[in-house]
């Protein structure tokens, strides 16, 4: 992460495999490359290239731990994108509309919390 350009963030998120890798790192903070690679039918080198793209965009932070490299999700770039195009109130209304979409798709009433 050397600049705060959004280009690298959008490029990193444009690939479905990288989005899936980001999900894995987000759900298992501190995982390593092997943990991520286990979920893909591609070479370890291929996985490392994708992870490098995510790290370059600042979406992943890697930290050396002995002979290992631990991976962590960094939410800040996504928050900056959100802040760039969303104001407080539009964010609230958009959030409600997304809630309704999820509720309808799940076949539940948006007024009632999940059982």
């Amino acid at each position, binding site marked *: *992460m*050397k*600049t*705060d350009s959004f280009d690298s963030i959008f490029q990193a998120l444009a690939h479905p495999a990288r989005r899936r890798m980001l999900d894995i790192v987000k759900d298992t*903070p*501190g995982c390593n490359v092997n943990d991520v690679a286990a979920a893909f039918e591609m070479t370890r080198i291929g996985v490392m290239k994708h992870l490098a793209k995510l790290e370059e965009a*600042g979406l992943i*932070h890697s*930290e050396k731990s002995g002979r290992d490299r*631990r991976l*962590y*999700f*960094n*939410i*800040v770039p996504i*928050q*900056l994108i959100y*802040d760039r195009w969303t104001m*407080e109130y539009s964010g609230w209304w958009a959030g409600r509309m997304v809630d309704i979409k999820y509720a309808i798709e799940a076949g539940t009433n948006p007024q009632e919390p999940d059982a």
Partner: protein
Amino acid sequence: MPETETFVSKIFIAGSIDAVWREITKTDEPQGAMFNNRMHTDGLALGGQIRMRTPDGKYTGVIGEILEFDPPHRFAHTFRFTHLEDAECVVSYDLKEVDGGVEFTLTSKGVAVGSKTAKQMKSGGGFICKTLKAIVEKGRLPLHVWTIYHVLKALSFMAPAATKSENWPLKGNGDAQPA
């Protein structure tokens, strides 16, 4: 399943490393990036105690002990919210000069899984990074953050009794900083 977890927030700041370092270590005025708390300390050095207090000094939200102090690159300290019973964790700030600015990394380690501290650290990291970036790059707080701080100030009388600063004194003259 691990008993503790780690949170990392990282951001690029277009400013000097000294400016970023000052914002996270200054004691002569409230730190806008740190929820407008003012850092009180008996010494910014290994083993020094820190207390993050409201600008009027009446309430203390966070206490800690300095583990590393390497200006202007790394600052690490233990961290505990005074209103929670959760075990302390370790917070570190890493500053790295890169082309055009500074890469700032905030790491919280040893945070008890599922604790209230974990919930606050998870959301607080991004807030601190974004606010710090705004202060260093634009020289002021974002309007919505400024508003939040004023609301918090108005509601400070509702702060839990456990956070009263008299419960968290500093040894020596650490509390004798100018008001």
